[in-house]
């Protein structure tokens, strides 16, 4: 995990790109909910895709239940977004929309909201890079930490991952989630090139 893929200046640019994109994406959700989300500076790291499961296990409770929402993005910049949200946070999020929260609604609402969040994020991120992206339909599953590792093979399909740890505070409810932006090697190289052109 200790791989130097971006220097200090490049990381600073990446952090700011994430802040901008995440701010835009959160605003859409907050305005839909007619609520105000207190934004914390998201924690951003970039890792090799082969280390993704170590990072996931570091961040989540091994006995917990999680919603895993995945979606492919395609174009000059391509890869997959993986949004991981714990069951309680998903419940909190759903309860902001519906006064009666039912099991099946949690999954539907989580899919809908995280789809808006991640696709807005990627769209804004790509816009900052000056490229266009399109999306495949998202999918959601309720899964355990072990299930994520056993049933998914992110490391073979991708080269690098931007890991974004977020905590949104909607009024009194905390919504904790992790967004993983998986990229192919060519997309990582393109991102690095774009970051460097911003630094010039």
């Amino acid at each position: 995990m200790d791989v130097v893929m971006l220097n200090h200046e490049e990381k600073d640019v990446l952090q700011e790109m994430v802040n901008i994109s995440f701010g835009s994406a959160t605003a859409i959700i907050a305005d839909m909910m007619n609520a105000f989300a207190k934004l914390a500076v998201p924690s951003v790291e970039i890792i090799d895709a082969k280390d993704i499961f170590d990072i996931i296990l570091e961040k989540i409770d091994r006995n917990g239940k999680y919603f895993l929402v995945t979606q492919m993005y395609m174009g000059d910049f391509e890869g997959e977004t993986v949004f991981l949200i714990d069951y309680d946070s998903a419940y909190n999020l759903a309860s902001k929309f519906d006064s009666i929260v039912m099991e099946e609604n949690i999954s539907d609402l989580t899919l809908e909201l995280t789809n808006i969040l991640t696709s807005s994020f990627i769209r804004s991120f790509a816009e900052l890079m000056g490229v266009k992206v399109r999306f495949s339909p998202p999918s959601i599953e309720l899964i355990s930490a072990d299930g994520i590792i056993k049933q998914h093979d992110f490391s073979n399909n991708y080269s690098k991952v931007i890991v974004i740890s977020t905590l949104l505070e909607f009024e009194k409810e905390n919504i904790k989630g992790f967004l993983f932006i998986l990229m192919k090697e060519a997309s990582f190289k393109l991102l690095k090139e774009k970051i460097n052109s911003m630094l010039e």
Partner: protein
Amino acid sequence: MKILVVDDSSFSRKMIIKAIPEEIKSQSEIYEAENGKEAVEKYEEINPDLVFLDLTMPVMDGFEALYHIRSRHPDATVIIISADIQQQAVKEVMELGARAFVKKPISPEKMREIFEKFVKN
């Protein structure tokens, strides 16, 4: 003219400074702060004519910094440049006395507009 640029990202500060029109930059003293607390302290020290302030920052956020600055200096000209574009965030900073709210990243055209609107007059 004294300009204070407040943002926790050095890249973002650089981009804001880069967007300031050259003719203004050449005649100005530009100061930087990394968080709201530093901004409040720096404001007392230099008494700037214009402040560009981010909202989401560690130590002290832009909302609190704006509150402190405007409580002590009701005429302070503070422009918010932020990624937090929630309607309620915009409303809150305008109520706290910000003169304008600009979505990040700021373009040179938008920056020129700000100087024309809030500084030349």
